[in-house]
């Protein structure tokens, strides 16, 4: 056995082989996605797809794992930064980079076994979950935000595992029509999105744990999804009660509707 993974043999007899065979798509390799890319390279994932059309700006250097001052000067593509980082950690990983919106490489995305969604908007999350459900791909979604509560900043975030057939982000109440409508009205006027490396790191680390569990089943405990809240002020993670009260099977993406939409 490869000594590199000798400390994670508890993941199971077939874990290394499964991780090697698996293909994970990271959609958005900014503050959250760069952590995910780094950790998946360490755990021995065999294939990774990186989707992001953005380039490195100096304002990314507070949190973009792997990015350098030189990358910001050159406005390097974020997918190139992530690719370079993964190669340095584990040159055996097969990496596909897509410096574009994932919708422009939708056929490639279907080849992923798991999608990690590190997207900024509710609408983008809805789109990627809909695409993933059609092709039987679990999605792990992470996101963080900072709100003013009593004029003081409060960091919050979420980690959601959306499994085909199980409750989706709408079933869980994370996405709803009102949020999507309000977001559409404010499109383009959102201003700077506050982001810090440590909360991104917490969310990303938990997400990687969930991805590895999905790919290896090492916990041996079946679940029908996951919905965790992150309180970045108290540094606490808690399970949302909404998962317990969500429908057993998804009413928005029934399994009978998998495959290409019929015209």
């Amino acid at each position, binding site marked *: 056995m490869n000594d590199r993974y000798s400390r994670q043999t508890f993941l199971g007899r*077939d874990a290394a*082989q*499964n991780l090697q*065979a*698996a293909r994970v798509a990271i959609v958005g390799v900014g503050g959250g996605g760069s952590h995910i890319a780094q950790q998946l390279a360490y755990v021995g994932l065999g294939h990774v797809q990186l989707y992001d059309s953005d380039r490195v700006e100096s304002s990314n250097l507070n949190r973009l794992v792997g990015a350098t001052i030189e990358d910001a000067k050159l406005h390097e593509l974020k997918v190139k930064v992530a690719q370079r980082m993964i190669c340095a950690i584990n040159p055996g990983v097969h990496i596909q980079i897509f410096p574009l919106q994932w919708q422009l490489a939708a*056929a*490639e995305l*279907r*080849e992923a*076994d*798991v999608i990690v969604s590190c997207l900024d908007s509710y609408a983008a999350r809805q789109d990627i979950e809909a695409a993933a459900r059609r*092709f*039987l*791909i*679990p999605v792990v979604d992470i996101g963080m935000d900072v709100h003013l509560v009593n004029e003081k900043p409060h960091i919050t975030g979420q980690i959601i595992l959306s*499994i*085909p*057939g*199980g409750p989706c982000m709408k079933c869980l109440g994370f996405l709803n029509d009102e949020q999507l409508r309000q977001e559409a009205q404010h499109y383009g006027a959102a201003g700077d999105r506050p982001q810090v490396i440590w909360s991104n790191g917490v969310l990303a680390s938990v997400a990687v744990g969930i991805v590895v*569990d*999905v*790919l*290896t*089943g090492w916990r041996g405990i*079946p*679940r*029908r999804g996951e919905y965790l809240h992150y309180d970045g002020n108290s540094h606490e993670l808690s399970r949302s009660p909404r998962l317990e009260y969500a429908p057993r099977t998804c009413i928005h993406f029934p*399994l*009978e509707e*998998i*495959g*290409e939409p019929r015209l």
Partner: protein
Amino acid sequence: MNTVLRIPDSLTDAILADLRRQHAFAYERVAFLLCKQTSVPSGILLLAYKYIPIRDDQYIEDHTVGAKFDSSAIRDGMQAALSEGAAALHVHLHDHVGRPHMSRTDLREMQALMPCFVNLCPERVHGALVFSVDAAVAKVWGTHLPAEGSPVSKITSVGSSIRFLGVA
């Protein structure tokens, strides 16, 4: 060409439970599994969605093989593939742990049967899927594929975790 098969976990469990049901005289059960077919850059992605077991009365008593069925069972499978525009996989179970293998009889029968499906629905691939208790192996036949069939490179069962049933 690369072919990948994904099966919802709930469907995998239902298939295995059904294939384990004892028949009055057949040693094993057989079914068809319908799949939506879509193109991906590396080849074909099959998404299993409907399981059609062969009815008890369609089996023919023959103790020289695990299971033998009449032509109406084949017609039902072909009709389902045609009506639903689906890729059809002939399914059975080798009830042991570990990677299953298609027997010589399996391969001989499939090489005779699959061209009928391909002629009927040439825009889809069709094939054979053999489960074991914890693994699976599959081959597909199609218009531009070799006469001996093309192996399915990855078979996963997608649920709360992904079971890698077969990886070439």
